[in-house]
């Protein structure tokens, strides 16, 4: 009992520097979860599709980036400029993907039950895994961090009687993610397309009746989600490697969504941070008690418990079932 309820807190109090380090690590992975969750929210809001393929889109976009760069490098064109050409190329790939998904998958499945569309995104996931592996190969790839001006190294900060390490890359990730989220918020609130998106989110039929093209909107949101995925893929890839196993980690955006609610952008962010910090704390302080590795399921179990008590999420409205 002592080990479970007291000891971890004693440790936290005794070594506050370590606690800050763990919290920081949690925040950074939380930001990345939030970024992936944001892609889900975009698509869910505008099309009601729960896009299981968001995780593979993260991997696929990052692979495209690295793949295109490597292709250019093999042909004697490398360096910063080539990296940015590759970046544009990867964005182009995500655009093509959005168009293809809309044309091939969404359009024929209009008006099908949500769950059918959900399962269709499993199909997209598998297809992209296969396609990605055929084109780029299955082995992990290093992200082209230097070429994209991503910083290396770390700031070592003396505080609380110890030293806390802040990786510059993590700081950059947090900043870029915040910028991304802010610009999306502006896009949603201030632009014509943003208004159309919100209209579609409220009611497909009403939006159609005032002349908004659903097909165009879907392409736009899937493209936006693709770009968000690309950013998430670059950040994550720079921290570790670009590999298909990332797809499984990306699934953690699902519990994030359950915490935050499927339609709420601030929910996705707060949910992401809670899950990120929560699982790092749990892993570091309680994990050793059960042999470690609880990061693999902790987020899901939090979500499960949460669902039992508050199925509508942190920011969702109470669900009134109408008959």
């Amino acid at each position, binding site marked *: 009992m002592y080990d479970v309820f007291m000891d971890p807190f004693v440790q936290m109090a005794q070594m506050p520097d370590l606690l800050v380090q763990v919290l920081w690590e949690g925040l950074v992975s939380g930001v990345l979860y939030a970024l992936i969750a944001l892609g889900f929210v975009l698509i869910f809001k505008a099309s009601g599709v*729960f896009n299981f393929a968001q995780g593979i889109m993260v991997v696929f976009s990052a692979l495209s980036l690295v793949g295109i760069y490597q292709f250019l490098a093999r042909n004697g064109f490398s360096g910063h400029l080539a990296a940015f050409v590759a970046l544009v190329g990867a964005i182009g790939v995500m655009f093509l993907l959005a168009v293809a998904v809309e044309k*091939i*998958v969404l359009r*024929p*499945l209009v008006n*099908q039950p*949500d*769950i*059918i569309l*959900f*399962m*269709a995104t*499993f*199909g*997209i*996931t*598998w*297809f*992209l*895994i*296969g*396609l990605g*592996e*055929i084109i780029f190969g*299955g082995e992990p790839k290093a992200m082209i961090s230097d070429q994209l001006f991503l910083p290396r190294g770390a700031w070592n900060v003396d505080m609380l009687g110890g030293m806390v390490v802040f990786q510059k890359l993590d700081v950059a990730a947090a900043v870029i993610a915040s910028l991304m989220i802010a610009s999306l918020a502006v896009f949603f609130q201030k632009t014509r397309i943003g208004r159309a998106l919100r209209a579609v989110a409220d009611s497909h039929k009403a939006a159609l009746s005032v002349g908004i093209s659903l097909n165009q909107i879907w392409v736009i949101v899937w493209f936006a989600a693709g770009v968000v995925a690309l950013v998430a893929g670059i950040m994550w890839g720079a921290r570790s490697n670009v590999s298909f196993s990332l797809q*499984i980690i990306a*699934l953690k955006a*699902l*519990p994030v*969504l*359950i915490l935050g609610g499927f339609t709420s952008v601030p929910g996705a962010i707060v949910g992401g941070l809670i899950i990120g910090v929560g699982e790092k704390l749990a892993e570091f302080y309680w994990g050793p008690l*059960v*042999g*470690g*590795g*609880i990061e*693999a*399921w902790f987020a*899901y*179990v939090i*979500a*499960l418990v949460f*669902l*039992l008590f508050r*199925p509508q999420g942190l920011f969702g409205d109470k669900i009134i*079932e109408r*008959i």
Partner: protein
Amino acid sequence: MFYREAGQFKDNYAADRAVFPILQDRIGLGVILLAAFLVVPLLGNAFFLNSIMTPFLIMALGAIGLNILVGYTGLLSLGTGAFMGVGAYAAYKLTTSFPQVNVLIWVMCSGFFAAAVGAVFGLPSLRIKGFYLAVATLAAQFFLQWSFVRVGWLYNHDPSGAIQIPARTLFGLPITGPHATPLTQYLVVLSIVVFMTLIASNIVHGRIGRSWMAVRDMDIAAQLMGIRLLPTKLLAFAVSSFFCGVAGALMVFFWLGAAEPVVFDINLSFKILFMVIIGGLGSLIGCFLGAALIHVLPIVIRMLPLGGDAAMVEHLTFLLVGALIIFFLIVEPHGLAQLWRLLKQKLRVWPFPY
């Protein structure tokens, strides 16, 4: 011409409620069973039995389990792989702890453990549906898989971290372990799968199956018929997990012979789910059709002239399975089973168009 129901009058309700009311269907089923029990063992070589038939049957059983949940009760689960794992580990623990009891009894009992675990993880289904529930079952998937790795007691602290199936016999004939022949293993698996399919068919055609479908189609109206949601959904979870658990135990005992935790990962869950989607939601025949397609697909791809690259085969399988899922959801959401029904309908009126 030969497939007509004309002249077959049902003079009692029992005959009308039969699972196969048409005589030709019953003959067809008999022929298939005869072929499975006699012709396949006579003609099949070890590769065919061990790499195609046995795993196909096991996967079909798992698909039946999942279909009870997804197809009949409308509850989406992504934790099938883990529930199969529960069955496998339970059977392993039971047979290593009590080796004197026949292994087949333990294989069937393992289903009860899977059922209990399934029911626990089914509890949230009362309050949540659709993809929310899918996420909840992901919790089961990842938590259980983690347990298979970390709880040494489950695999008897074997240093390899895997479960090694000991040799067991039935009537003096080795059925598990290195000395068991593919033929005996195939026959054991076939018998169990046929038996359990029969039970599944009985359940879904009776009162319980109807309550499940009522909950699936319109849960509010179902409550008004006096159907209580929680017990009905939990029963679906339990029965479904029972089937998955037995399938998992069969998989390790009669096919793989040993298994690491990674065998029961989320990819297995998806593989089974895809069998259900492609085969047909809410159809038992569909489970077999879907399992056949998904399981045979990589084997067929391997035979294609691609240079025999194993990785390429896997990649192509992913690609094709993904494409097939989308294709079926768009073109025929009721899967291969619906195509089968249409074919029978055409055959019934052949040679006339209708």
